[in-house]
């Protein structure tokens, strides 16, 4: 049968139109507005005067912005690669289990992932509360001085990073398990016949065949952690020092607490560009690493 390309195009248009409409309205339009507002001195609500590049030039000499960039980078460093490695190790362990037992263990690891962030915050805030937390009583019992985990400058970001890994590892584990299951058993059999050691099997077979999954997990984690906000905000309730400042928090502070919409938009644009550049860069690097291996 001859295909009518005009009808085809029409059908295609009808099918993608609802999505495109929402995408334009809820993503493209606000993004364009964000760029526009970043060149004005607008408050949180309403229009402002055009100030050109002022908001961006002020960022250059803004210690709080520099700290936000540094803290975001520090947080990414503590979560992305360690989180991915931990998930890989757990997935390797879980894949050795069989049947229902495996399902139960996997469910246990996946459970935190389904919790909303506010619940995650409450669990850990109660556990590690400086005055009343269970963990503090454990420290007392062991004779170790109490640590104000979420309240001190030193411990805050590492602690939030730990909680974040605990919270999000379940999803990465699931991806790794799917990857591990897609590696044909015959390859392992052949390796066993060749007297390959466990380490060699992992290094020469599992790791390279799992690389596409690894790079996917790394990319997802990187984008997610660059946008870190919820946990930092919740654990900072009560006005934590600016030492905890991360980029999205800075946007929030400028816009909602200091009523400076224009400056907040400038930070948001910077973060937007940063996420695009870093994720494209990482994606290219990972592809390069993969190609070289072949």
């Amino acid at each position, binding site marked *: 049968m001859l295909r009518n390309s005009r009808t085809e195009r029409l059908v295609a248009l009808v099918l993608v139109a609802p999505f495109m409409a929402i995408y334009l309205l809820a993503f493209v339009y606000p993004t364009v507005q964000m760029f526009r507002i970043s060149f004005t001195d607008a408050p949180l*609500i309403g229009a402002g005067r055009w100030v050109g590049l002022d908001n961006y030039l002020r960022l250059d000499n803004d210690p709080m912005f520099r700290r936000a960039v540094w803290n975001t980078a520090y947080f990414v460093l503590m979560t992305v690669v360690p989180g991915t490695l931990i998930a890989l190790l757990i997935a390797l362990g879980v894949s050795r289990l069989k049947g229902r037992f495996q399902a139960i263990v996997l469910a246990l690891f996946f459970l935190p992932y389904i919790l909303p962030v506010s619940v995650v915050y409450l669990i850990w805030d109660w556990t590690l509360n*400086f005055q009343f937390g269970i963990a503090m009583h454990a420290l007392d019992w062991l004779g170790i001085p109490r640590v*104000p985990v979420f*309240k001190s400058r030193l411990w805050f970001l590492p602690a939030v990073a730990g909680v974040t890994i605990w919270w999000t590892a379940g999803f990465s584990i699931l991806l790794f398990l799917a990857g591990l299951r897609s590696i044909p058993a015959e390859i392992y059999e052949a390796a066993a016949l060749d007297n390959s050691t466990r380490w060699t099997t992992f290094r020469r077979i599992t790791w390279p065949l799992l690389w596409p999954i690894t790079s996917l997990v790394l990319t997802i984690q990187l984008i997610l952690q660059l946008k870190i906000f919820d946990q930092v905000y919740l654990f900072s*309730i009560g006005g934590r020092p600016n030492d905890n400042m991360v980029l999205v928090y800075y946007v929030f502070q400028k816009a909602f607490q200091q009523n400076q919409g224009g400056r907040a938009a400038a930070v948001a644009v910077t973060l937007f560009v940063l996420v695009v550049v870093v994720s494209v860069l990482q994606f290219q690097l990972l592809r390069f690493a993969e190609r070289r291996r072949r």
Partner: protein
Amino acid sequence: MNFRKMMAIAVVAAGGFWVVAAQAEETVAWWDFLGGGDGVRMKQMISDFNAAHAGKIKIDATTLEWGTPFYAKVQTSVAVGEAPDVMTYHASRIPLAVSQDILEEITADDMSKMGLSASDFAQTTMGAVTVDGKQYAVPLDTHPIVLYYNRDLLKKAGVLGGDGRPVGMGNKEEFTATLQKLKDAGVEFPLGSVTADGNFMYRTIYSLVCQQGGELLTGNEFLAGDNPEKLARALAVLQGWTKAGLQSTYTDYPATVALFTSGKAAMMINGVWEVPTMTDLAKQGKLFDWGAVEIPVIFDKPCTYADSHSFAIPKNKGKEISPEKRAAVLEVISWMDKHSLFWATAGHIPAYKPVTETAEYKAMEPNATYSTLTANMIFDPKSPKAGVAGPIFDIMSNYFVPTLNGEMEPGEAVKSIKEELNSM
């Protein structure tokens, strides 16, 4: 009459009834941020109001999250015409709200319709809701901070005076000695302080700056002249108490209240809004003998930070309030103020003078003990940058937690605060 006809008549009748009812009853959408013990009292007042105005006015109340979430929501809802008809508002936030043009003016005509006059309120309180001679809200109360104390523990340590109040309230050395005696008597935390919450400590620290005659904003400059030294001295006193083990470290708000009510902390500086917590516990026989007094004088003169819960009418963009609705809102505000004797059981000091002048209020404890402090109150500086969860509040409180717990030196914190405030 057939069935269809009967149904039609029934529908018309029901519809007609509904229209009559809708015309008679005005529903007032109400937002507040009163989530604590005082919120329970406010809910009681709202249901009393509704009962007294059955068929005429009904308050449809929603309680939202205190602080930044509340005020951000008010701004965005006003911008799109979805704001409530009336809302509670901190007097300290009014200059900011006026600069954002989100509040309706309360005219002299409105005041007379409510049966209120400016002279029914303290001048400082009325001044706090007025910008450039125009009034933007009606004060409900003033809510300062006070010093709560545990009489049993104080008596044991020998620091309870003959009048049932703590001794050593006159200067820094005396008060520190009182705390030290409590420590020596085996009290774990002589003073329970919200040292993990800079937002909260803002009130105490601002009081201590004021006790030295200092101010945050002079003209357009933040911390001008010798005010940085005054702020640093206030921080140093509090840090000193932490270092000497006289107050609780890294303690958040709920934990502070728990330390006090469980008897681990002998004293606590907190807002009057915790009074209901204490009275309710005491009523159930679960609390020691307690009291609340004006905070101690640490420096040169008594001074206590206060703010005022007031009622404001949002300027709903593109959906202006109807005259009927406005009349209903004014009735709500007026009724609440005139019945604020019950609000005083939430610890607050009613702003409406005819209430505080009654014999019933004067006999009310512990309000009567601390109501003297109204003479020594200071409100936030009048600036669009001031106010609860506003820019000044936010910037300053960010530096308090590390300083109070000894991670940062007062001088360093003050230098950063000054820089950040002035570069806003």
